[in-house]
């Protein structure tokens, strides 16, 4: 995003981007012998076909708006933090440790488990932040390395210290006092979505309503000017990583104490894995804005939830959805496409 000029009519462009991504996906679906129209119809019906489906889509969107926030805050500070993945794993472990091991009174327990997840994610994010500030290690490399270290550490902790009695496939479940209330009987949506949206709103208010937030954005947009204005670059770096880590940690917690039926972390980390990377696409579609991310997460949540019906009805592997996300991101990266489009339309 650095140095890219702001484009008018962002909504038209985003729509065009998404359409381009979907069209490329249709080609893939077709190339591997499936029917694209059938696949996309199932995808759409799966995502929005009924009230339950919309609620389920929202449940899928919840972690994505948070991991998108991780990336977005990084970009706002001029950083390319792709560590949401690992921060989320560690957050999930932190949440389940408190939710599953420490009995506490209701209410307090929920808050404590949520906080544990967030703090764990935040602390994990401090590592690449410090490496960046003290040693100049590029965050793309350090966050990928910490993602993998987090993967093995979390698997180790999940299997070694948090396993449920008699089961090897997941950790012990969160105690009922540490679970977010389920909103309806028919969907896995819980009240954790309110916490997620509130966190995004809080970060928005921080970035655009406080001096520290202004400094963070200034450092990202114009490091020179920020230096002249006396902005502490190291402080901004650490701050943006910590906010991102808190968000990713909350995302991890949301999948454990905010998502039935497991209320636990699978031993393979299967119920959190790749949500951090998906957040990058969500953030870019949401224009690296905390609230844009909330809306974009709804779209990506729809793809993720609808993908399940697509797999079931049209036989197209639901993983295609993630390939679509990548195609959308690649299309978004190409500003020249818009110049071309505009010229075509201007004619």
């Amino acid at each position, binding site marked *: *995003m*650095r*140095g*890219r000029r702001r484009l008018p009519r962002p909504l038209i462009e985003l729509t065009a981007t998404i359409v381009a991504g979907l069209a490329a996906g249709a080609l*893939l679906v077709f190339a*591997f*012998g499936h029917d694209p129209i059938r696949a996309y119809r199932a995808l759409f019906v799966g995502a929005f076909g009924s009230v339950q489906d919309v609620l389920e889509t929202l449940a899928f969107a919840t972690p994505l708006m948070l991991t998108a926030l991780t990336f977005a805050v990084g970009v706002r500070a001029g950083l*390319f933090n*792709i560590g949401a993945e690992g921060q989320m794993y560690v957050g999930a472990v932190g949440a389940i440790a408190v939710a599953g091991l420490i009995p506490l009174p209701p209410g307090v327990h929920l808050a404590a488990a949520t906080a544990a997840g967030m703090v764990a994610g935040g602390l994990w994010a401090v590592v690449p932040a410090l*490496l960046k500030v003290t*040693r*100049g*290690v*590029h965050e*793309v*490399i*350090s966050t*990928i*390395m*910490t*993602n*993998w*270290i987090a993967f*093995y*550490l979390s*698997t*180790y902790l999940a299997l*070694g210290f948090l396993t449920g009695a008699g089961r090897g496939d997941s950790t012990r479940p969160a105690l009922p006092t540490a679970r977010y209330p389920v909103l309806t009987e028919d969907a896995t949506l819980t009240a954790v979505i309110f916490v997620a949206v509130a966190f995004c709103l809080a970060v928005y208010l921080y970035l655009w309503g406080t001096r520290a937030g202004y400094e963070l954005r200034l450092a990202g947009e114009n490091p020179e000017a920020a230096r002249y204005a006396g902005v502490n670059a190291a402080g901004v770096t650490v701050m943006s990583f910590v906010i991102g880590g808190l968000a990713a940690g909350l995302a991890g917690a949301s999948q454990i104490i905010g998502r039935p039926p497991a209320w636990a972390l699978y031993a393979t980390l299967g119920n959190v894995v*790749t949500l951090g*990377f*998906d957040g*990058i*696409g969500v953030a*870019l579609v949401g224009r690296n804005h905390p609230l844009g991310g909330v809306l974009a997460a709804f779209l990506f949540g729809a793809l993720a939830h609808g993908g399940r019906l697509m797999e079931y009805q049209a036989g197209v*592997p639901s*993983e*295609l*959805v*993630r*390939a*679509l*996300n*990548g*195609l*959308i*991101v*690649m*299309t*978004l*990266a*190409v*500003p*020249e*496409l818009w110049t071309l489009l505009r010229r075509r339309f201007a004619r």
Partner: protein
Amino acid sequence: MTARRRAGTALLVAGAVALFASLLQRLGLGPISLLEAGLLAMTPLALAAVGECLNEKAGVVNIGLEGIFMISAVAGVWTAEVFSSGLAGLAGGGLVGALVGAALGAISVYGRADQIIAGMGLNIFALGFIPFLLISLWAFPGIHLFPNELMVPRWFTPLGQISPVTVGAVAVAVLAHLLLHRTVLGFRIKAVGERPEAVDVAGLRVDRLRLFTSTLGGALAGIGGAFLPLGWFGALVKEISAGRGFIALACVVFAGLEPMLALGAALLFGFADGFASAVAVTPGVKERIPFYFVSMIPYITTLVVVALVIGQRRFPRTVGRPYARE
């Protein structure tokens, strides 16, 4: 300061390696098997890193190496099965890698894309496309086992088994060094990264040079990706690259875009990676250290080495930026 510091670090690393080796000997892991594992692990890193050095010298960054690794691993196994030959598989992986590299290069050069985001898009795409491909091609998710005959044959030497691809990777690094510092094309590549406007004025095509290095880099990464299943693991799993594309990028940063130094970095990180693979299967060791901690070794090593050594490196002036005629 850098030369002295680099020498000091190298000495430190050599000492640590020697210490490790003696320790492992006592645990029952011989230096030969460690050397074998280290060289195997070095190979894909070296190929991808050397290609990316050339690419970045010309001013284009490809952080989609991880994605190319993944895609070409599948493409390589598929080609190997079609042609019943591991070497054909390597070629297939290289070809697909070249195509992806060219596509990414075209997006960067003609689309004036944000290269970091485009590369990340490629990685995310691969993350979903690989399981999709595995199911579409072999109707089985996550893993695909192919016949053992398709493995690229290794040479038996007194120092253990060595893959010809490893030798090829070393040769590629040497050739890249010579190309960059001894040929006209090499000077042009360096010039296009530093002063594309001057290259343009001199009547050379900036776009073609950059597209060429992107394609070349993609091809080398593609061979490296196909090497993972066909030359090393003997199986295809969806997480096959496991961050190695980013470790290759760390090699590039470490090397300051010098192919020979990138080879050295690949050797270092390869040893960390090979060490982990070797320890994970060594009786006597695997019972003592949890597998999860062993698996962290290459990533921790990369982090620590990059943090210790990097400091300030000078990159081509226009690296990561699209070129536009004024």
